């Protein structure tokens, strides 16, 4: 389904065809078209096209407009034309008359349901803003850099979307300020994560988890504020349980101190200095409701977003008693890897701006902030399920779903 983003242009011919008197034998048009098809040279082709045009020309009274390219034909006459003339015109492929140059959005159905009608979309999604009628009718203005331009939008059911982009969050998190989505862990990505992941791509090859003797027991890297923040997040994420004793809490401190010491190491530290000095607002720059030092915030998100590194750390622990407690903790913390990605797939996606189309009866079950999409509007419909109209922000969602 294609939806124009502006009013109908003038110059588009009314596509109603007209019966043609085809000579006493009733095959003149067929003959002329055959001449056109069998033409051996440009001259023959042009002559045949001229004959067809003359034969199919309408009366002046019933004509829509004049031919735009009379010079091309053998006989340079001002000829009246209509949809029938243009349909069989030899120059049709190159003619600009009737070509719709408006910007369109094409809605691609990613699921197995019947789409709402075009009128429904025009009336409810692509309507003029009463406060700014001169603006584009594109509902994704401000969310997509290509708003107002031709592109594809995707329609998918909420159930299928959940299957494709599941929620792998460890605790109840507010997604409002999240900017992206990691398909491997199913977690949303916040602004600070994005900056960290950019650095991570450069340093992942040089991270070392081997512990020296001097690293054995230390929690020096955590400030009092860090400890308070870490405890809050650990309980909220289920890393710590109310029944846990001080020893487990102590080991949690040690675990995060180690990760912070890796972040501060000579090899990696210089890459992260600037990032760790940034002010990080809870729930805005990071997902959690409290914030510690820059190093702690990054260490927490590192562990949450890169569970394989936590496993690598765990593999380097020896078997003394403290290590056992740490391994127990690691098994609690370790995030699920929801899926493995093929090399063709994109791991990190932006959170897609989305319009919900749903029956009123299902409104209470809609979540307007989801891990992989942000709902920007909700439209009531008579559909029997919750549908999501998604702007892929330049990502081919059909291709992404096929490559899975």
């Amino acid at each position: 389904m294609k939806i124009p983003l502006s009013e109908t242009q003038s110059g588009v011919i009314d596509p109603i065809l007209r019966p043609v008197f085809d000579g006493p034998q009733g095959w003149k048009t067929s003959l002329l078209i055959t001449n056109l098809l069998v033409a051996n040279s440009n001259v023959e082709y042009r002559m045949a096209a001229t004959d067809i045009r003359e034969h199919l020309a309408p009366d002046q009274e019933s004509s829509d407009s004049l031919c735009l390219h009379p010079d091309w034909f053998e006989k340079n006459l001002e000829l009246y034309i209509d949809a029938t003339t243009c349909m069989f015109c030899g120059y049709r492929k190159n003619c600009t008359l009737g070509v719709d140059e408006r910007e369109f959005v094409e809605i691609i159905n990613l699921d197995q349901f019947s789409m709402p009608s075009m009128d429904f979309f025009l009336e409810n999604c692509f309507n003029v803003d009463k406060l700014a009628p001169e603006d584009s009718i594109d509902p994704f203005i401000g969310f997509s850099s290509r708003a107002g331009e031709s592109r594809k939008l995707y329609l998918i059911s909420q159930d299928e979307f959940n299957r494709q982009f599941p929620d792998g969050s460890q605790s109840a998190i507010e997604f409002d300020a999240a900017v992206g989505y990691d398909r491997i862990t199913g977690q949303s990505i916040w602004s600070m994560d994005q900056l960290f992941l950019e650095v991570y791509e450069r340093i992942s090859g040089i991270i070392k988890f081997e512990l020296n003797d001097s690293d054995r027991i230390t929690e020096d890297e955590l400030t009092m504020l860090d400890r308070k923040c870490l405890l809050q997040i650990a309980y909220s994420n289920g890393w710590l349980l109310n029944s846990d004793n001080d020893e487990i809490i102590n080991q949690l401190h040690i675990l995060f101190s180690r990760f912070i010491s890796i972040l501060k190491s000579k090899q990696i530290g210089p890459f992260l200095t600037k990032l760790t000095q940034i002010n990080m607002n809870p729930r805005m720059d990071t997902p959690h409701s409290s914030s510690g030092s820059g190093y702690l915030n990054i260490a927490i998100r590192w562990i949450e977003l890169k569970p394989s590194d936590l496993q690598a750390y765990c593999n380097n622990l020896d078997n003394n008693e403290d290590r056992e407690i740490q391994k127990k903790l690691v098994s609690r913390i370790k995030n699920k890897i929801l899926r493995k990605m093929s090399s063709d797939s994109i791991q990190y996606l932006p959170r897609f701006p989305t319009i919900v189309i749903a029956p009123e009866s299902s409104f209470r079950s809609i979540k307007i902030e989801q891990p992989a999409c942000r709902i920007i509007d909700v439209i009531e419909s008579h559909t029997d399920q919750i549908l999501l109209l998604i702007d892929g922000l330049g990502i081919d969602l059909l291709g992404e779903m096929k490559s899975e």
Partner: protein
Amino acid sequence: MSERNILREIIQQIVPDDTKIIFDFETIETIEPLMVDDSKNRNIVISSLEHLIDLPKRIRRNLYKGQFRKTTESSNIDSCIREVLSLSRDILSKEIGKERASNWREIFYSRIRQIIAAEGLYGVLNGNSAIIEIEQIDHKKQFELNETLLFSFPGDKKIIATRKMRYGVSALLFENWDIMVGYDELFSSLERLHIASEVEQLERKRYLFLWADSPLNTFSESFIFSVFSDHINVNRKNNKFEAGVILLFSTTPRNGPLAKSEFTSKDFLSLQRVNSGGTLYLAPGFEEDVFTKNIKRLNRPNSVFELDSNFYKDVEQKMSELELPKLRMMKEYSISVHEPIHDLVEMSAFAISSGCWTGTWAESLEIDGEQVM
């Protein structure tokens, strides 16, 4: 007094004189439009709760509308930005060639979009992310400061103007500069951008979404005034777009049949946008035990929200009936007790006031929002 008059009088007492009050006419059933004065630049848009659902769409459309508006006005912000970009690209192309300068222009344009998304237009020429910077050298002996105006070209910043400032004398951002050779046009263009953004910044909008379970004239006037006043003044931030919700509830049973007993599904959905950390206002009526029983009366205001207070039990019951505890707005809220001096009414009431997610990253100190993706 009619509902519109109640709201009109209350809001006009709270907001500065230069504030335009806009009622979202089609959406608020019981309120007729107020007179709108186009000369005013601060706006309060009052809508019914269900319109909170598409707030991020409305705000971001407003933020970016200049790029889509079919206008050639020279004061248009977007055209000013494009002019700055084109002039700086032309200067740069003499050093690094046309192609690289054009690439840089695209990157620079994205950066400006990010700044606008996160900080508004103010951030383009002011603050840490600004495209210009003023550097000061203090010549203590001469009692003057030498200032240089730097423009962010790729790799380094170039001095485009200098000025001397006497101690104690202030100057506007683009005042008293000696422009360096070759930068006249760029400087003028930046100045035009500054003027245009100053005008644009005045167009601040505060969206207020209102829901009440009973007609407004059944609530104590001072209670409504107190809630609105707090909401508009105490929670004021410096963002271009702010949004909040005010929910008014009655609890006294005899007013029960008149009061709405549930949110519509769209209203309830809209409440998902309300942030935590709001305020719960409690306003017991004069027949409540906190006024009729001596001990409780003496223990006010604490007795109002003690668990054995009949009023507080009613509040909790009403919240439970309306399924409010399911919502994040009921987390981390503070409580305020309202006791009017002159208009204590029979009907007990409570209200919830809180901010809403606007779909911008204005609260972030450092990050340019989703643009980083």
